[in-house]
């Protein structure tokens, strides 16, 4: 039976969607804020801030994962504090996987949103100001709607990157069935077992289908937005 998912596949797929979904939703406000700071503000140390945000793009994911372990692990600088005060454990849980995915996908999200914000006509924002909108209201009623196609592209890109996240995840949260074994990690585990060619291929196909569906959805949404603005 090619078209029904096995329990293992269903588990990995739903875990991947959960982890990636939370990674994107959780990092989106920070992503929009960072993109806005980079697109619209000038301050000393801006290039340092820019570099810091882009760092996960050029670092080996294993380094990111290890850094997260050091920072957010049960005995880590921040992790110990989180556990003592709130009883929150991130290492070796799906929440930790979401954080690892979010960190790795963050630069891609910020880049896309920053480009979109830079493309928004400042004259329209000025017009909104003269019509009685404060800076925050202007941002939500003019800037964001106009940047929406780019924000959407950033979200989809980050989502796809999260789906494919492997190195940082396996370093930070390891491979725990039902908790942190996402699609790529399940696939990696299968490739370590001799004679698992068919289940590995099935996981490959599932990954391709999910990624492709995400891209298609973003294309359709972006097209609809364009039509709405031109009609």
């Amino acid at each position, binding site marked *: 039976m090619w078209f029904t998912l096995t329990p293992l596949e269903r588990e990995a797929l739903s875990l991947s969607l959960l982890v990636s979904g939370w990674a994107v939703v959780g990092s989106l406000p920070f992503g929009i804020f960072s993109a806005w700071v980079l697109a619209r503000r000038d301050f000393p140390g801006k290039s340092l801030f820019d570099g810091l945000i882009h760092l996960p793009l050029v670092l080996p994911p294993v380094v990111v994962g290890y850094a997260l372990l050091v920072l957010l692990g049960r005995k880590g600088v921040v992790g110990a504090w989180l556990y003592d005060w709130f009883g929150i454990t991130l290492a070796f849980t799906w929440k930790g996987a979401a954080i690892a995915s979010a960190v790795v996908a963050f630069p891609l999200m910020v880049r896309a949103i920053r480009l979109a914000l830079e493309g928004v*006509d400042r*004259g329209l924002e000025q*017009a909104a*100001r*003269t*019509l009685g909108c*404060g800076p925050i209201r202007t941002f939500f009623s003019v800037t964001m709607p106009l940047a929406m196609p780019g924000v959407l592209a950033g979200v989809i890109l980050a989502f796809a990157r999260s789906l494919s996240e492997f190195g940082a995840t396996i370093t930070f949260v390891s491979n725990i069935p039902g908790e942190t074994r996402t699609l790529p990690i399940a696939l990696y585990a299968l490739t370590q077992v001799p004679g698992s060619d068919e289940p590995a291929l099935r996981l490959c196909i599932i990954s391709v289908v999910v990624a492709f569906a995400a891209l298609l959805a973003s294309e359709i949404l972006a097209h609809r937005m364009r039509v709405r*603005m031109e009609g």
Partner: protein
Amino acid sequence: MLEIDVTRRQGDFTLEIAFTAGSGVTALFGQSGSGKTSLINMVAGLSQPDRGRIAVDGKVLFDSGRGVNLPPESRRLGYVFQEHRLFPHLSVHDNLCFGMKRLPPAERRISVDHVVSVLGIGPLLDRRPTGLSGGEKQRVAIGRALLASPRILLMDEPLASLDGGRKNELLPFIAGLSRQFDIPIVYVSHSMEEVLRLADTLALIDAGRLAAIGSVEDLLSSPNYAALTGHGEAGSVIAATLTGEESAFGISTLAFPGGELKVSQIASPSGTLVRVRIHAQDVAIALAPPVGLSVRNQLSAVVRSVTPLDFYLVDVILDCGGCALWSRITAEAQSELSLRPGMSVTALIKSLTIARGDVADRPFGLVDTLPG
């Protein structure tokens, strides 16, 4: 009333301007780069003067001495930009209501229905700005600014991006706005035709400074500002009212404080306010009223000033019932007439020298607002 007194340095350029603009339309006229747009951006709060004070109806918007600098959204000024700047993600209706929605209902002085009917944009309400023509977009932009019930309407060359036909379609709307909505307008322009048709007061801006401010007629009839107004040849501008026509002869009569002018026929109805431009070289001077002359316009006048222009020409400013009338005669004629200030003379103007293009309708002008 707008009071402005500001200084701002931008590189080599220093803008230093102080004036007061009252009701009606005040035109800021000057070459590109003279600082007109910078000035109204400061009024709107989109840029900040280095020093100075800006107040509207007594409310201080900016005062460097007292550390007051209201953000644009708290100034309650309408701004119509050169490019329409409509929000592409909103329908025409939502664009119109954008500023109004943010205003407490008690402070909304102007109704959507009124604006829609005056600007004739009823059929466009459900459309998106992208599909509109340039003239339609600019009308919606004007409506959007008006509906925010501003204290003053600032307009930065709103017709500059439109072609001639669209311009003529929009001019009457703008001319009527100030009176219909009882709102002072500050209108930035570098087109003298727009100034003639729209403005009550003219402020001449030159290289960041105010060269002169006064009534359109006074400034455009003065040889002192001819270089700045750059308006073709030397001449005077007179405000007049269309009083009648003799269609059999293709002539219209205009009344102005100095008497009556006969010009080639104008299609507008009797009572329309117009501005007439009379070229200095078309005004002849006689020491006594001549008889048996083909020249239709003979106006009694008093010489105000005589200024030699060069060895060949002399500029004579005549006072014609309080209106300045500029005449340019040859130095040889002056040597024979010996014109001096205070002399009573007769000014002669041929009707056909006042062409259709020299008469500018002010479509919503009413007779009782005729100055003088």
